[in-house]
């Protein structure tokens, strides 16, 4: 990989960006360009693979190699690409429908196999492209065109699904939060193995304001917690609140109340192998808990694509045949003279 310095501009294609004005995908796209420029991986060594959906249009706006594929299959196509050429930096772009409904099977298996992909889930809790049906992340009771009386099913929580598939990297951000988005994207790219980044994304047309409570700096200070490796889990406008362990669960505490000091607050460790606390953090939601943003889990494990290469090397060490003819001639054969 080259060590060249890139500008966000270098990752931008000349195509007109067609998302609705105000769509959260615009902001995300800009931060992705920025993150890629910071990574220093050349555009020609980067490939962006998407499925179908508004969000899946993204590859057309990249000046990298890109493939806008079919609904739900981005993870599987990205898997083939990465296994075929592990040297590429491969990004998968999916919406909540693309990744978790029609593509749910590929999503969990790419994570389980630990393919070294950066799997971006743009979660607007709606089907945007097909004009507003509920999705597998829409909350119970959600009213949409296909659920006029509200849904009668519970949603997937992407982190839970990822962890159920043995996910080693999970991060969350929100479309409008530039610094967090850029930092989780670069962390995802640096993580070797399947990295899932859930992006809370606004659909101005069909689900406007779905994440509005977290859309402002103040809102995030109050209702979200920015997790940072090795730092205490504090949040609030003045960092006056924190998280503590409480039996088998977590609790929100106020510094200074009941003699609680910063020393009592949990310190974030994304690298711990056990995922119990990571899951607890990832599943926190209002009104009682802040939503966790940042890198929640980041644990190393052998990636599938590198293991495939390693196995080939290992076999080649012990077996000298390199052509089909050599292989066949070494088998059960006989000669007719």
């Amino acid at each position, binding site marked *: 990989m080259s060590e060249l310095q890139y500008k966000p501009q270098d990752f931008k294609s000349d195509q007109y960006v067609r998302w609705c004005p105000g769509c959260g995908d615009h902001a995300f796209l800009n931060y992705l360009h920025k993150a890629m420029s910071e990574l220093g991986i050349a555009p020609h060594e980067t490939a962006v693979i998407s499925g179908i959906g508004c969000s899946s249009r993204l590859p057309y706006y990249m000046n990298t190699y890109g493939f806008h594929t079919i609904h739900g299959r981005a993870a599987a196509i990205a898997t083939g690409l990465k*296994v*075929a050429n592990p040297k590429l930096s491969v990004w998968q772009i999916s919406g909540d429908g693309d990744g978790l409904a029609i593509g749910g099977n590929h999503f969990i298996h790419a994570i389980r196999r630990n393919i070294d992909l950066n799997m971006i889930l743009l979660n607007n809790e709606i089907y945007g492209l097909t004009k507003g049906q509920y999705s597998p992340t829409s909350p119970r009771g959600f009213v949409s065109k296909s659920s006029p009386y509200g849904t009668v099913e519970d949603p997937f929580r992407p982190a839970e699904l990822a962890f159920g598939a043995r996910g080693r990297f999970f991060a969350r951000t929100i479309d409008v939060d530039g610094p967090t988005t850029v930092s989780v994207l670069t962390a995802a790219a640096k993580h070797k193995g399947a990295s899932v980044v859930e992006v809370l994304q606004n659909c101005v047309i069909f689900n406007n304001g779905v994440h509005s409570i977290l859309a402002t700096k103040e809102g995030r200070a109050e209702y979200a917690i920015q997790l940072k490796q090795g730092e205490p889990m504090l949040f609030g406008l003045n960092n006056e609140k924190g998280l503590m362990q409480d039996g088998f669960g977590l609790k929100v505490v106020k510094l200074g109340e009941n003699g609680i000091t910063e020393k009592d607050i949990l310190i974030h460790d994304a690298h711990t192998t056990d995922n119990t606390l990571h899951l607890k953090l990832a599943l926190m939601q209002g009104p009682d808990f802040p939503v966790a943003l940042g890198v929640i889990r980041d644990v190393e494990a052998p990636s599938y694509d590198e293991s495939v290469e390693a196995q080939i090397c290992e076999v080649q060490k012990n*077996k000298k045949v390199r052509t089909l003819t050599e292989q066949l001639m070494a088998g059960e054969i006989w000669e007719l003279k």
Partner: protein
Amino acid sequence: MAEALNIIDLENVVVRFSGDSGDGMQLAGNIFSNVSAVLGNDISTFPDYPAEIRAPQGTISGVSGYQVHIGTKKVYTSGDKCDVLVAMNPAALKTNIKFTTPQSIIIIDTDTFTKRDLEKALFTTDNPFTELHISNTVIDAPITSMCKESLKDSGLDNKSIIRCKNMFALGLVCWLFNRPLEHALHMLEKKFSKKPTIAEANIKVLTDGYNYGHNTHASVPTYRLESSETQKKGFYMDVDGNKATAYGLIAAAERAGLKLFLGSYPITPATDILHELSKHKALGVKTVQAEDEIAGVATAIGASFAGCLAVTTTSGPGLCLKSEAINLAVIAELPLVIVDVMRGGPSTGLPTKSEQTDLLQALYGRNGESPLVVIAATSPTNCFEAAFYASKIAVEHMTPVILLTDGYIANGSAAWRIPDLASYPEITPNYVPEGTENWKPYNRDPETKVRYWAVPGRKGFEHRIGGLEKDYSTSAISTNPANHQKMTETRKAKIEYISTCIPDLKVEGNEEASLLVVGWGGTYGHLHSAVKECNQKNKPVALAHFNFINPLPKNTLEVLSKYKKIVVCEQNMGQFAGYLRMNFPGLQMTQFNKVEGQPLAINELKEHFIKLMEE
């Protein structure tokens, strides 16, 4: 010598080994065919597996068979009926009697014809032969007890001893056909190289079986199959169609200088291609056992985008699931080989039986105008060529190619001369030429209409492709009506152009006949044999057999229109006939269709052809 007088010369012989699925009939049959091939005979074999994996022992549903056809000249099928039937138990006798003629010799294990065994096979009397109305020559051999006797000092447990009884039967058959045992012994040593006691036991029982024949059945004639001189010199091995397919793909990757990638999900009868390719890590082959059929093809498409020779293998139900992704490769114009080993359908259908019923699905089973190349393999060894040329066309013409094989040729095996790969044509990917400026991904060769390929990692050729229609010149997304018309016509023209790169349709048999038999794919051996036998009887008939289905060879109409009568023979209800009618309106033809899951019967074909001639 008296013995020598009892030797009968034969040109062809069909032996069918049958028994319980645990009786090792596949191994016995496989060794017998190999031993014969080493002697210079041509061979064609077909295993007949039971539908259930572990049916109760001794029952009809647990019967497994392996048919071996041996000839002093070239043999084309595993044979309709057998000359020798080995039936290791009553259930095997009952299910396989339909493969015998009144002249067939039947070898039975008398130890397994007890009252209980007969009941398990649902015989209602204690004489299975009268019950089945047969009066064939039967060699009664107490195979189980002889096997036990042979190994009584071996130290093996009873179960392991009984497992060797297939070798006793094999020894007997080897004696009957004058097959020296050396090669068989060598094969057993190799097969059980990690278990020397088992190897020794098998070898002992095999030898005892041979000697038993020699000592006790001197009055039964034995047979001689002189090795044919028609076989080409060289190194040979035994391959089935699935192995040959795998080798053809590896050969193509080698000729193209590409890495071979397989994405696949296990499905009968295609799984053995996955098994085979998974072995060849030393050759750099990458295989992914995907989470489902869609991921199988999707990973292959990803690998194709990455610049590999990318393949997915499946059978009919899997092809259904893959169709949307195949269409992505159609519109993205990426090379992809899809191998469909056809089985009986619809739905799960007859998973272990063979049909040609996926033809129209392969041609048309996708949304939109979606032309792609369809090729069919004609025999186990032809799977190698077919896979090689499927790959060559896919890579050179940037298109998905569906290769149709079927359960019969996939599992059937034959002696195969290891080819000289240097004599195969090169495969040249249509890469974007060095130094190209202002390149767009859908720029194409003006003559072939093939777009130029730029593989990720190559600097200066970053580009985006996808499932949305693209502009002919700018390669950007386009919904322009005239452009869509143009792109649709271009994709069609690209596939049609391939007809100039494939061999012309040839006619065999009596070219001057007024009746032309038309077939495609895995029925070749049966059609060839039926046509040959008709001509030998002075019933003139010609045969045109298709490997290339889309596009058709360019001389197809010219050939077909020469004949007064055409009969299209297929293992489906007339799919190729319908395809020909659509391509050549006005062309008259009749049909011969069978969907019994069994290979076509040569005799039945002959009768049909003769009747047509006389009409």
